[in-house]
């Protein structure tokens, strides 16, 4: 039994919404239907930074809701999920974290060596449990 994981390098996410949009378009979803969306970590609004100028901070995180299927059909064909395949900054990785030498487990160790911390999705986000965020700092 393989353990499938979506590994998100929070430092690489630029908040471009490509993951959410490609999922929305490729799965032919309704106009306001998204299986994942990108949350801005700032002062609350979309792309709104926290703090006062010039001491601002802002980052993003893709949130995978329970509607996400992790692209089961594409995985069966040996392809990556749409979001992972299209992420322009390679912030997303999909694979078997347990398997020794897989791309994702290598990257996981690499990020750990850089001092990144593993964070699980918050319970109130109703997120897929397979998602792991790698974040900087405490």
């Amino acid at each position, binding site marked *: 039994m393989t353990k499938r994981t979506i590994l998100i390098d929070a430092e690489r996410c630029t908040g471009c919404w490509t993951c959410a949009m490609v999922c929305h378009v490729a799965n032919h979803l309704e*106009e306001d239907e998204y299986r994942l969306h990108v949350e801005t970590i700032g002062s609350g609004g979309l792309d709104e*930074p926290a703090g006062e100028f010039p001491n601002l901070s802002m980052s993003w995180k893709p949130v995978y809701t329970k509607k996400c299927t992790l692209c089961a059909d594409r995985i069966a064909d040996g392809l990556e999920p749409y979001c992972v395949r299209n992420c322009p900054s390679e912030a997303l990785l999909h694979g078997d974290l347990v398997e020794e030498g897989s791309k994702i487990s290598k990257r996981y160790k690499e990020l750990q060596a850089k001092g990144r911390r593993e964070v699980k999705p918050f319970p109130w986000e109703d997120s897929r449990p397979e998602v792991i965020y790698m974040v900087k700092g405490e």
Partner: protein
Amino acid sequence: MPAEPYDNYAGTTFNTKSGKIEFYAAGMVPLGAAFADYQKTYIHDEETLQKYPLHFYPGRHKYFMQSQFTNVPELRKLATATQTGVALNPVTAAEKGLEDGDLVEVFNDRGVVKVPCHFSNFIQPGMAHLWYAYGVQDYDLSGPATILGANQNIDEAIDPVAATWGPFWRGVKNASGMPEALGMSSGEIANETIWDVLCDIRRAE
């Protein structure tokens, strides 16, 4: 479909000391400019600066590519959720006596843009920011944002001599096969990025 995403920059080296794009340029440390920083508007016209103290900035939107994709409803929703109308730093807005959401007029000698104002710490004090790329149809109450700016790269803006000889000289260069970009860096005309975009802002009646 290839297994690996196509990398446009694979194996590319840049003409810098490190061979990389230098966001942090170590060689510029003695000058105190290792990072690219905000520079004051390149306008020496003090008189206009007194009249229009704000720097107007039509920012390029990350969800669009110039005006491409502005007809995609999903992206429009995202873009307008970030900001509709003109964004001001709360400090600038307080000086002008404005409140968040007020209908305001951004104006200079060239025209007026009538839009709601939006407070954001994203924007530097002294600036008025509107998203570029929205067409004239998106401005119900006035002209579009682009009417406020004028490129200082045009011959007339540089000097009357250039206005007379500029087109002729360009014709000669084009005929000889000299690339346009080379002419820009040869010092004959100003850099394309220099725009006169001073403006002021007032509450709309």
